[in-house]
């Protein structure tokens, strides 16, 4: 595979003028000087925040329908699809009188995502037949311990659309609510 197409790079030894290094250094210094008063690229983080794109795959959110009932039926498809095995769940039967809480007869008593394992690939969202989980445009905030990164159901659930309509709208963001799920 050795080919003869290779080019020769300039390999002359330094000339006397170059060997004092001055001229080239001055050129480089002029470049940096020109940056002295240019527009700064910094985003002042806590005050300014850059907006994520609409398709950004961030923190998972467990969805509710328009009446505030949880969509998840604990079918476990998301857990199977997850390449990082980050999702743990436990299913339970819906009792009578809980119809306003859960949409289907089965629901997740326990739903945990380990954000340290999660690779934010979005497979859970793809796998879900009930539109119960989606990835939002934010990321998991820092925490002091590993325990804090295991997100429980309460951490993941979207705010109630009727009781806390404003928080719900904010959490929903750009997401379009499907009528039937």
């Amino acid at each position, binding site marked *: 595979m050795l*080919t003869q197409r*290779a080019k020769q*790079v300039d*390999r002359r030894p*330094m000339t006397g003028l170059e060997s004092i290094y001055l001229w080239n250094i001055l050129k480089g210094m002029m470049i*940096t000087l020109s940056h002295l008063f240019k527009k700064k690229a910094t985003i002042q983080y806590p005050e300014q925040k850059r907006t994520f794109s609409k*398709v950004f795959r961030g923190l998972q959110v467990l969805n509710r329908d328009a009446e505030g009932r949880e969509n998840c039926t604990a079918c476990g498809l998301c857990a199977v699809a997850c390449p990082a095995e980050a999702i743990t769940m436990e299913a339970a039967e819906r009792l009578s009188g809980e119809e306003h809480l859960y949409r289907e007869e089965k629901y997740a008593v326990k739903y945990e995502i380990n954000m340290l394992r999660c*690779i934010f690939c979005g497979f859970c969202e793809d796998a879900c037949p009930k539109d119960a989980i989606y990835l939002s445009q934010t990321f998991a905030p820092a925490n002091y311990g590993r325990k804090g990164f295991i997100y429980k159901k309460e951490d993941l659930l979207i705010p109630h659309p009727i009781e806390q309509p404003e928080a719900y709208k904010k959490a929903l963001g750009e997401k379009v609510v499907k009528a039937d799920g």
Partner: protein
Amino acid sequence: MYRQTEIIKDASQPGIEGDMVINVGPQHPATHGVLHLVITLNGETIKKVEPHLGYIHRSIEKMCESLSYRQFIYVTSRMDYLSAHINNHACALCVEKGLQVEIPPRAQVIRILMDELTRIASHELWWGAMAMDLGAFTPFFHAFRERETINDIMEDTCGARLTMNYIVPGGVMADLHPDFQKKTKEFIQLYKRKIHEYDELVTGNIIFQNRMKGIGYLSPEDAVSYGCTGPTARGSGVSSDIRKLYPYEIYDKLEFDEVLESAGDSFARYMIRIGEMQQSIRIIEQLIDNIPEGDFQAKTKAVLKLPKGEYYSRVETARGELGVYIVSENGTTPYRIKFRSPGFSNLSVLDHIARGSKLGDLVAMMGTLDLVIPDIDR
């Protein structure tokens, strides 16, 4: 396997003739990761370099064997995280080879566009880190500023900035963002404005050139026998661009040059990468206005099963040839998977080229090999 205590004992004992043995890494700014180099020094001159690997070994190959053909692709983003998209591409190509699916032309073009953007992003970061290794800090920030633009483009379309997870077997995950063409063209304009700055600040700097020229000579024969690929091999004049030699997708229909230099020293490897960025820009310019209409994903079954057999595919990542080898037993998961990562072979050449040069040169040489440690350890 070494036990930790043995390494320390080993390294603190003077070698023959009272040489000094120093441990560079695993936590050392020059290694850009957790690479451990045991260096035998005679004064400032290097007598031997011994890389110790495994600090970030996550057994990705073994992990992939328990994951389905859709899932394992995304784990490979974590190998060479700087060209994550190209890693995914290689795996998808291998799976597609087994599935015998036809990839829609639109998906092919999108993949190549993203590949080349990733390559530029990777080389930008390398350029900044390279200059920083030699003590110039400002280029690092300038390179990151331009790289940020690529990350934004990636985020718009792929949904993530570094580990894109954009490729699925049979195509790509989602269609391009409506602004993709506009933003990419803006990036090309920006890049062309900035490239002269790069030249004046680093490439043309005589101190920089003095530290690169004639340092770390790798002969073409050695490059072949050590299995070097990518810019490391091309710097020695060995043609090794997979895009030219074994074209995949539609690379054979595109016009671009394989950048080759004959000098084989650090500066040649440096110039190769600078040239490759321009070739990537050239490829993007050819494709950006000619993205075919149509599907972005071929129809595939929900659960993929590869027929019994062995499959191998290779792509050109930013660092060299990445090979993916899958043995299938007709199951939903691969029976055995093996990645031929470019970084591993490129690192093996370090001892050979570093002997006899100065300690300061070692940093420059490691810079031009463009090591990404997770890629080496996997």
